[in-house]
């Protein structure tokens, strides 16, 4: 009986015509390994382009705003910010959460997509990881200076001090210290380790002495030996496995800054997943904002293809919709929970003293990304770039809405207040974009902006069992 059945199956298989599955290649135009090496190394090895200098000088000027803002703050006192009672947090926490959130997409691309074997991540992960590291550095500025007397900021760390008092480990702000410093450190380790083989390629191609020493030092004597690759791949996989729970925990702990407080609008269990989704959403917005110009300037269209742009747009769409769902669910629970303060907090968010920020948030975060349902829009690169800017703006406003509407209108009308930023607030935040750009431009100039070995290993030539 079984034999007969087998023959029947074979006959059926002959009759059916399986739909052809056309897989879009990740590297277009059948490029060779040599082309990839020359392209990526060429960016670093060629003469510094004029546009780079213009961008770099502009970015330095913008970064000086943060410098001036902080010098003025430290020399005068934290009162130069618009923070008041009851809005003690103001822009400092908003900017902190905004920048930390930006970083999350980098880790998602490098770690989570690695575990999920999403091969398209290879050409965008290095730049995204760089973005993560730089965004976390920008984020760190705000809580560091918000402590007021920044020269005592080291009291946050469990180090012996002259008062002989240790940190208090029940505080979410103390958890933040551990979460954010671990996140920064592990992101740098992961970023650096991935760069070792590429540094070795740059070292071996280098003609100038300083390059030989610079890349040689960081390549640590890497030899492309299979024994090296074996341990490297295992270490890479493990770091991806460690970064995945890390990235989820970091924004969870950031959300605890709010959720552990007893204020209406903050004290909710939806905060951790909602913050993580928002972080990935904003991060992908920033990845698109950065990579689309980089791709155009360096002519990387064969490496960052329409497929990559499509995928990034679709993740933005998915996480944007998750965030929209969270906004709706917050409202529902505020009503369903039948707590009058909670109910008021949400009505106040949408129609109260900061109504305009709420509707900027909704239009940028919920409505805007819905455009990515359409293929035509995903293929219109300038439009994708503009939408990605809206996503960034919207996510900044989300943190503004969460932090400020609740603080300015809590339980007692007698303690209500209104918060507006001062010019120092605005300068300090504006300058961080310059600081971020300075670091990103230096990255583009001196480090391989794509992992060459990883890009090559998703090309057809990498398969030892095929005829390429």
């Amino acid at each position, binding site marked *: 009986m079984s034999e007969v059945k087998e023959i029947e199956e074979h006959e059926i298989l002959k009759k059916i015509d399986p739909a052809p599955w056309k897989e879009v290649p990740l590297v277009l135009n059948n490029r*060779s*390994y*040599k082309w990839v*090496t020359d392209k990526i190394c060429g960016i670093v090895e060629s003469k510094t382009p004029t546009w780079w200098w213009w961008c770099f000088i502009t970015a330095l000027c913008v970064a000086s705003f943060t410098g001036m803002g902080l010098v003025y703050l430290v020399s005068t006192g934290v009162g130069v910010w618009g923070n008041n009672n009851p809005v003690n947090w103001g822009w400092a926490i908003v900017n902190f959460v905004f920048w930390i959130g930006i970083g999350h997409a980098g880790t998602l691309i490098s770690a989570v997509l690695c575990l999920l074997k999403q091969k398209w991540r290879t050409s965008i992960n290095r730049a995204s990881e760089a973005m993560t590291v730089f965004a976390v550095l920008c984020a760190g500025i705000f809580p560091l200076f918000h402590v007021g007397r920044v020269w005592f900021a080291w009291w946050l760390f*469990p180090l012996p001090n002259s008062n002989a*008092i*240790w*940190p*208090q*480990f*029940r505080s979410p702000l*103390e*958890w933040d210290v*551990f*979460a954010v410093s*671990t996140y920064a450190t*592990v992101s740098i*380790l992961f970023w650096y*380790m991935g760069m070792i*083989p590429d540094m070795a*390629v740059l070292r*071996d*191609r280098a003609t100038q002495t300083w390059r030989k020493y610079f890349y*040689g030092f960081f390549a*640590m*004597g*890497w*030899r*492309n*030996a*299979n*024994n*090296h*690759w*074996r*341990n*490297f*791949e*295992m*270490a890479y996989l*493990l*770091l991806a496995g*460690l*970064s995945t729970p*890390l990235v989820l*925990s970091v924004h969870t*702990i950031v959300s605890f800054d709010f959720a552990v407080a007893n204020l209406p609008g903050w004290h909710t269990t939806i905060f951790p997943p909602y913050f993580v989704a928002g972080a990935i959403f904003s991060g992908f917005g920033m990845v698109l904002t950065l990579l689309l110009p980089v791709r155009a300037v360096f002519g990387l269209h064969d490496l960052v293809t329409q497929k990559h742009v499509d995928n990034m747009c679709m993740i933005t769409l998915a996480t944007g919709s998750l965030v929209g769902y969270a906004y709706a669910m917050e409202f529902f629970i505020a009503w369903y929970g039948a707590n009058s303060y909670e109910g008021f907090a949400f009505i106040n968010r949408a129609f109260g003293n900061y109504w305009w920020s709420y509707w900027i948030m909704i239009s940028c975060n919920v409505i805007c990304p819905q455009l990515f349902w359409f293929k035509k829009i995903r293929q219109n690169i300038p439009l994708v770039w503009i939408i990605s800017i809206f996503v960034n703006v919207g996510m900044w406003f989300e943190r503004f809405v969460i932090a400020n509407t609740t603080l300015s209108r809590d339980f007692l009308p007698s303690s209500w207040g209104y918060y507006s930023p001062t010019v120092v607030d605005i300068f300090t935040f504006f300058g961080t974009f310059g600081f971020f750009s300075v670091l990103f431009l230096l990255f583009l100039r001196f480090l391989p902006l794509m992992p*060459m*070995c*990883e890009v*090559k*290993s998703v090309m057809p*030539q*990498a*398969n*030892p*069992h*095929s*005829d*390429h």
Partner: protein
Amino acid sequence: MSDIMDIKYAVAATFSSAKDLFNAAGKVREKGYTNWECFTPIPVHGLDAQMGYPRSKVPRFTLAGGVTGFFTGMLIVWFMNEFDYPLIVGGKPYFSPIYPFPVFYELTILFAAFGTLFGMFFLNRLPRHNHPVFEHPDFGRTGDDKFMIVIEVDDPKFDEDETTEFLKSVGGDSVQTIREPID
């Protein structure tokens, strides 16, 4: 011969594709060589098994790091908030393994990540900025688009002429001896 003193280090053969290298590596292993290595621009899938390498030992370092981090986190919270300077917060116990969860969770990950990176360096015997294989004129190409098999002089089965012929027979494009300069 040049004036520089040198000794033979190995015989190297280059290949132009991952497939050629993969097949050749299998033959080198079958032939019984033990002191040899493949150099590739990418981690070639399945080459570990082909060369007869066991599973990487990096996870042991990760585990050691993670366990150390977990206990370090627990220890600092217990020592600081219960033992050295008991801190009353909200009338709750000085120490419990629950409330400082984020602290030891993050430290577990931090130490495990350091363990992974340094474990990788240790197992690869890096940093090592000098190596005889760098003397091969085409070594730089192994990071670009060339594949290379190197059989060392130390191998018990090594015989310069025989090994050279063998590497040619398995498809090596250019086979040459790497010489290591000595002081």
